[in-house]
Structure formats: C-alpha cells, structure tokens
C-alpha cells in the first residue's frame, strides 16, 4: 500500500554498469549466504543419520539422507497434541493482542485526550518488562487464583508480552492512513467507527499481519513460562517444552531435535514467505511514524 516501490533509474550503458554493480551483487550474495547457512545447517542436520551429525570431518552436503529423525519427531507421543496446544495458545494471544492494541493504537493516533502521553510512555516501559524475573510473581498470582496448569494463563502471559510492540507499531500504521479518507466516509453517512472499519482497517491489513507475525514468533518459541506454569497437567504442554524431550541422560538426540525444530519453524516460515511483501511494506509504514 503506502510503500513506494524502489525507483531505480535504469541507464542504457549497461556493461559499465554491470561492472559497477559487481560489488553490490557480491554483497548481496554474501548476505544471502550468511543468513542462510545456519538455517541450512539446521535443515541438513535433520536429514543426516545420527552418526554424521557431529563428525570430525564435517560435510556441507550430507552424503546419506534419512527421514528417520522426522519419523522419530512425529511419532513421539503427543506430537499432534502439543502442536495443537502451541497453536491454540499462540493464536489466542496474537488475536487478543491485535484487538486490544488496535483500540489503544486508534485512540493514541487519532484522538486527543488527557493521559495520552503517559499511556504511550507506559507502553514503551512495558516493552522493557523483565519477563525473566516476573516469572516468580506471575507464578504466585496464578497459584493463588487457581490458574496454574491452564493454557489460558499462558495465553494471557503471551498476550501481555506481545501487546506493547503491537501497540507501538499499529499506532504508527494508523497515523499513516490519512484521516481525510474516513472523514469523507463520515460525510457519506457512516458512523465514526463504521468509517474506520470500512476505510482504514482494510488499509491496515499489512500492518496487522506484520505485527501478528512478530507476536507469533515470540509466543511460539517461549519456553520458561510454558515450563513453569504448566505443572501437573502434562497434556497442556507446548511445543518448546516438548522439544526438550529429545534430551536424555546420555545426551541429546540432535537429529530429532533439529527435525522437530524444522517442523516447528515451518508455520512461521510459511506464513512469512507467503506474506513477505505485506510484511516489509507494512513494517515500513508502521515504523516511519515512530
């Protein structure tokens, strides 16, 4: 939407140009290589037989391929259930934080009210919250309100972890949508929020996607709270906790861990690649506003 396609002036003298662009392409190749190597290593490990995983003569390309680790990962008891739990908790947290943040962001970006400044400051401070240390108080509160062992508790925690970032970015997005558009709709007889819903919200779709993906990744990977707040009801464990089940007294089944990690990263990757254009333009639009 608002992102302008980069406008590279095309010149005709192309051979000299190509030479000049060589360092540029070298840089691009280097970036791709550096970014992808660890990702590749994760995926390649998942396909290597255990004996080749950490070997004194590493190979860049596995010489034998195996699906064994994926089989181990998928057949480990509870794979589907924990996958579901993670999805449930993560989606719940992300949707909740989107809805709540949208309201707050709208109020901040479009309305003048006493306390607005303090609210914005509070959101920024919330972004700095020391979650590692809040685990004990959160545990105590959950225990005293009988909320331990419940997925809802995790959902609420993840909602809170992602809310500040979501609000900050959405506020920027809303500010980039010219209010005149909505005013025009209001002149045509829409209510204030009707105008917002019909006009601004569709324009905000990329922003919503960008922020929800960020929240998704954060919540999807979280281990400490999932380990600490789900105690006796083991059916409520989430994927990151389940991932640690490949560790035993004799070491870690790294092949299965990497296979599981690959499977685990898949949803995030798929969504990301699918929406990549929206995400990048979305983030830009949102962040320009600060």
């Amino acid at each position, binding site marked *: 939407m608002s992102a302008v396609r980069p406008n590279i002036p095309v010149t005709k003298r192309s051979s000299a140009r190509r030479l000049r662009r060589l360092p540029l392409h070298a840089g691009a190749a280097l970036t791709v290589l550096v970014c992808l190597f660890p990702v590749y290593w994760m995926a390649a490990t998942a396909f290597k037989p*255990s*004996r080749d*995983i*950490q*070997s*004194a003569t590493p190979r860049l390309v596995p010489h034998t391929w195996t699906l064994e680790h994926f089989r181990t990962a998928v057949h480990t008891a509870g794979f589907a*259930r924990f996958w*579901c*739990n993670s*999805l*449930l908790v993560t*989606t*719940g947290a992300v*949707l909740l934080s989107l809805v709540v943040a949208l309201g707050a962001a709208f109020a901040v970006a479009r309305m003048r009210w006493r306390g607005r400044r303090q609210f914005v400051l509070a959101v920024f401070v919330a972004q700095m919250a020391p979650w590692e240390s809040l685990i004990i108080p959160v*545990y105590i509160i959950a*225990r005293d309100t*009988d909320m*331990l*062992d419940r997925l809802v508790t995790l959902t609420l925690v993840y909602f809170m972890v992602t809310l500040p970032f979501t609000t900050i970015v959405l506020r920027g997005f809303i500010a980039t949508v010219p209010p005149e558009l909505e005013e025009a709709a209001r002149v045509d007889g829409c209510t204030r929020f009707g105008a917002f819903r019909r006009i601004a*919200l*569709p324009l*905000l*779709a*990329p922003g*919503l*996607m960008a922020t929800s993906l960020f929240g998704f990744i954060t919540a999807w990977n979280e*281990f*400490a709270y999932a*380990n*600490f*707040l789900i*105690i*006796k*009801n*083991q*059916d*409520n464990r989430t994927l990151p*906790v389940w991932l*640690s*089940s490949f*560790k*035993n*007294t*004799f*070491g*870690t089944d*790294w092949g299965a861990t990497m296979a599981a990690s690959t499977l685990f990263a898949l949803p995030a990757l798929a969504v990301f690649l699918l929406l990549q254009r929206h995400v990048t333009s979305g983030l830009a639009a949102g962040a320009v506003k600060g």
Partner: protein
Amino acid sequence: MKFRMLTGASVLTAALIVSGCSSGSDDAAGDGAGGTSELTVWLMRDSVSAAFQKEFATAFAADHPDIHLKIQIQEWDGIGQKVTAALAGNDAPDVIEVGNTQVAQYAQSGGLLDLSDRRSDLGGDTWLKGLAEPGAWEGKQYGIPYYAANRVVVYRKDLFQRAGVDPAAVKTRDQWLAATEKLNKGDQQGIYLTGQTWYALAGFIWDEGGDLAVQRDGRWQGALDTPGALAGMEFYRRLQALGKGPKDADEANPPQAEVMAKGKVAQIIATPGGANVVTEQNPRLKGKLGFFPIPGKSADKPGAVFTGGSDLVIPAASRHQDAAYTFVKELTGDTWQKKLALAMSYVPNKTSLASAVASDPGAAAMAVGAAQGHATPNTPGWAAVEAENPIKDYMTAVLTGGDLEREATKTSEEITRAMNDAS
C-alpha cells in the same frame, strides 16, 4: 477485502483449533471421586524403561485397586524450576523422583514430607549410603533411596586385544595410563574424555583424599586448591591428553556414546547403560564392549566414584500422602528393586540386594566401584554450584594451558560464594 479475508481466515483457524484441540484435555478432572484417589507420580526420562513401567503399573493396580496410578515422565531440561513450581503449588504431584544431590535444597525449604519414622518400615538400615545420606537433611530423612548408578570404564574388547592390553590387569592408575597410552595410536583414541566430565574429576580428587568443598567453622568452602584436589586434576590432565576429547565441552556435547559408536575410541567413562546407546547407534559393536571399574591409586582399592542416582520424595503439598507412601514402599521394596536393577543396569538401593545383579557384567563392574561411592557435599548450597558449574570452566582453563594453582584458587572462591549465597 484483504481485511475480510484476514478476519475470515483467523476466525476459521481459531474455530479449527478449538474443535481439534479441546477434545480430551479434560481428563485432569474427577480427581478423588468415587473413593479411589488418583496418584500422580513424576519419574525422570529414561529412569525406567517403558516395559518395566508397564509391568509395575499393572501389578500395582492389581494390588491396590483403590489407587489410580498415573505416572508422568519428566524431561531433564528445566527440571529444577519444574520441581520448584510443583512443590510451591497447591496441588503437587504425590511422588517425585529427585536427583540425590538435589534433595537437600528442597528439604531445607520445607516443601517435603519428613519420612524419618518410616525408615525401619522401609528397611533403611541397609540403604546405600550414597543415596540415603543426601536424602537426609538435619537428621531427618526426606528422600527415600530409589536407585543408584556410578561410572565405570566402558571399553572396546577388540581394540584392547589388538593392542595386546589385558583389561583385567588394569588395576591401578599407572597401569591405566600405560594401557591407554598404548591404545592411543594413529587415529585411534586411547580414551575419549571430554574436558568437562567433572564427576570423573571428583572421583580422582576423592582418591587423593581431597574434596570438592569442605566445611570449616560451619561455613562451606571450595576446596579445589587443596593438595589432594590439585593432584586429582593433574591426573585428569594426563588421562585426558590420551585421546581427542574436546577440552571445552562436556560428555553430552556431542553425546560421548555417539562418538564411541563412530569407532576408533577404545574407552569412555560412563554408566553401563551408556553401552546400550553405543550398540544402538552402531550394531556392529554388539558384544565388543566390556566394563571394568575405574582403577584406583593402588590395586587393592578401586577408584572412588560419584554415586549418581535418585531418591523418591513426597511433597508436603501432596493431597494423597498415604497412597504416595504405599507407592514409595512398593517401588523401593526388594521385589521391584531387583527387577529394576536387572532391567536398567542399576545398583539396587540396598546393599543387601547387590547379589541380584551379579550376573550382569556392567552392573558387576559398577558394584565394585560403588563400594567406594561418594556424594557431593550434602548442603542446599551445592545445587547452586552445580547450576553455575564453575568446576567445568576450571577444568577447561587448566586443560587449555591455564595455571593449575591460580585457576584452582579462583574457582574455589567461586564455589565458596555460590554455596554461601544460596544457603
């Protein structure tokens, strides 16, 4: 349009998830209804095999129809936090398997049930010291010995034969070094000993009469800088050099059993159970692995070893303490201990049961060492030391050329700090 699609998609996903996931997750309810109590037991991953667990559960259900037993397997990652969370909760699991060195800190916190008066009922007189002592705190028994295991040398019979080394003749440290040197040729490693295998170091230190930490004037102090401890580290350095074990990693990175499975490793220091992992990874080594106790300073006394193992504890917050006790009594009783030791290559929890595993070569080698079993300092502060583990850094520093005495002094101070910060 885009937005409508987005809402539609998310509502759809949400609906799918709710319908797909919610079924069957309500089995936690119904606790204690209808006269039977549901007993939740936490055992650690791989502490019992699936077959043993099934056999035990079936027999237990038959003997105690009023108790509905639910065994949950716990993962090693983050277990300290998890047990903490469980003990502090309102509805704790009823029995928890806890590493023997971890009992003290939980006992000190008041989260465990005092079982001192049940000692004789459970046959406490013949309990293994390495399990019973760490299970006690200030004269009261909180942890009930469950099983023990200690490290032995797992070796390749074929490589020993080819090098002309007789494993039965390796009785002293000097013989061990000589034999290992002979085995360490070309691309063959005499021993694969990682730089941070700290409980092996602990054994060498105990052999020399040293210790990891000592209590002076009621205060715990790191003792790596004492002469005995320094001599132990010196021996570790000589042994470690006879192979290609990484100096900056422990035996889990990569798993040493996997390294041995890849071949050309003559020895590792591991629990006998580790041998099964080796043959699992490389079936060609089946029948080629042997065991002998870690050699001591002289031939008449095998090397000291760290008694690893677990105790069973009953949280104070358990709602079914009587049923929990019934469970503990069964599992730590003679009948099941013999079966467990055979199934898992463990040392049973009582010295009187040692004969039960005499037929198993791994367990037999282990039993010899178990007579020289030691435990880490029995204080809540020790758990803090293990959590940070400055000993591992110390070993790496010395092995990579650091000054032995200076590093030892520095690390002893760190241990002192960690132990006293926590208590």
